[in-house]
């Protein structure tokens, strides 16, 4: 069974928020949508869960779909356990089963010691872990997480990704949006967006393999198609011609996405 969006466009008045986007979501696999502010990540998440109407294209999702918005969705005036209890009751879960599931989730999210703390007393990372725990409590088939790691420090991000990975292993399809490009390889599928259009998609290998032209490394800036990267410069040759004074290098995802953004500027 596969869900997702097929050739979807979404417009708000004159503004095209998503432009011909396709993404498949499969059980047990994590799809990562990456892009800066205004790229269309939130619109895509909201479209997948049915909160936005599409202008064109098709959307499919399973009956049991859960969505965690960017704000984490935690009620700050309730304790950790009250937040989880409230969601369990909202879904009408069997109380005995819910109790056991809540204890399991408290354990794997490292929130067991914080069970009686108010939502407002949790760190950002703990709030996001609680938010994801609330989203998976009802054991959805599809889990959609909008920027769960934004603003979190690297340690909290690692812990959250560990939990997301566990959720996928339980057999559910997961869609995660993020502004951090270095998180993209944690998923099975990648969709890089910029101003609503797709810059790169597929598995990490596919995205790198299908990059047009060739990439070179230089010790200096070489025109409009070069950019600073680490301790040197990258130079993109759209037609694959050799760049004198630069050596060919193997692109990674950051290069692929930057090339796609540059290609968009050239149009």
């Amino acid at each position: 069974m596969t869900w997702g969006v097929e050739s979807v466009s979404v417009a708000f008045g004159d503004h095209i928020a998503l432009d011909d986007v396709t993404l498949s979501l499969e059980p047990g696999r994590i799809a990562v949508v990456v892009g800066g502010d205004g790229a269309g990540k939130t619109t895509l998440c909201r479209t997948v869960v049915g909160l936005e109407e599409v202008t064109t294209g098709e959307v499919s999702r399973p009956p049991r779909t859960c969505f965690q918005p960017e704000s984490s969705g935690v009620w700050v005036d309730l304790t950790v356990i009250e937040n989880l209890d409230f969601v369990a009751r909202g879904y009408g879960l069997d109380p005995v089963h819910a109790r056991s599931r809540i204890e399991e989730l408290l354990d794997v999210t490292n929130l067991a010691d914080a069970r009686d703390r108010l939502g407002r007393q949790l760190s950002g990372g703990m709030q996001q872990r609680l938010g994801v725990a609330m989203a998976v409590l009802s054991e959805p088939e599809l889990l959609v997480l909008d920027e769960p790691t934004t603003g979190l420090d690297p340690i909290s991000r690692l812990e959250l990704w560990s939990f997301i990975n566990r959720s996928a292993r339980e057999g559910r399809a997961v869609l995660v949006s993020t502004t951090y490009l270095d998180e993209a390889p944690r998923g099975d599928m990648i969709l890089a967006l910029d101003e609503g259009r797709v810059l790169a998609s597929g598995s990490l290998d596919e995205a790198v393999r299908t990059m047009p032209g060739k990439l070179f490394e230089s010790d200096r800036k070489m025109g409009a198609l070069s950019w600073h990267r680490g301790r040197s410069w990258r130079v993109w040759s759209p037609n694959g011609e050799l760049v004198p004074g630069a050596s060919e290098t193997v692109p990674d995802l950051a290069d692929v996405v930057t090339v796609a953004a540059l290609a968009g500027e050239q149009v």
Partner: protein
Amino acid sequence: MTSIEADSLSKRYGNVHAVDDLSLAVQSGEVVGLLGANGAGKTTTMKMLLGLLTPSSGIALIAGQPVRSVDRRSMGYVPQGLGLYRDLTVSENVAFAAASFGVVFPDLERAGLADVADQRIGRLSLGTQRRVAFLVARAHDPSVLILDEPTSGVGPLGRAHLWETIRETAASGAAVLVSTHHMDEAEECDRVVLVARGRGVASGSVKEVIAGAVSVSVSGDATDESLKAVAATGATVLADGPGWRVVGADRDVVAGLVGPSVRVSEVPATFEEAFVALSS
């Protein structure tokens, strides 16, 4: 020349040590990254170095002088909130900063901002807002530039452009101190300083920080109970693809806890994992 220096800086709020005996130095022409968890003390350190917060103890020096006695025109700062006036246009924001520092209005064309000169800040994308904040911070040609998470929320090409500007600023002789949550941006820095609970726990190039650090890779056959036992030793256990990565534990200890049928091996730590191990 040492342009930015924190000498045993501490900042206490009651019993909370936001910054605890932290020392660092940034030379002219150098970009140093300040990395740490939320609440580790990065912003507090930056504010003390800028003279915006008074240290509880220790001293913040700019070009060898106590920061309080330093001409503000030698310093540029981009805070997390950018510090721009959202209801003013790009031109008005830049003109206000230029007039405040008594310098010539900078070239918006050269900064790639001519097209948005008459637009209000609040209507611009975050990436463009950050470019304006950079221009404002650099308009008076400071010898010290302090940037608090300058690329947060910016797309890949925008980030590449911002880093180009940061490197240009350093190449012109400025000392740059920058905090970031993007681990891949650590590679853009000449050196990084890792901060945990207000203290400096490591410094050097990314390679130097990682050097020799190892993690333990555990196959997916390990039981939850055995992984809990590993975590109980104080190690961090992370799901990774079909298997697990354990940070901060000895291979033999992990192997003993997960049992003989589970494949366990020592692997080079990633920068993130080295960061976790040092921060724990």
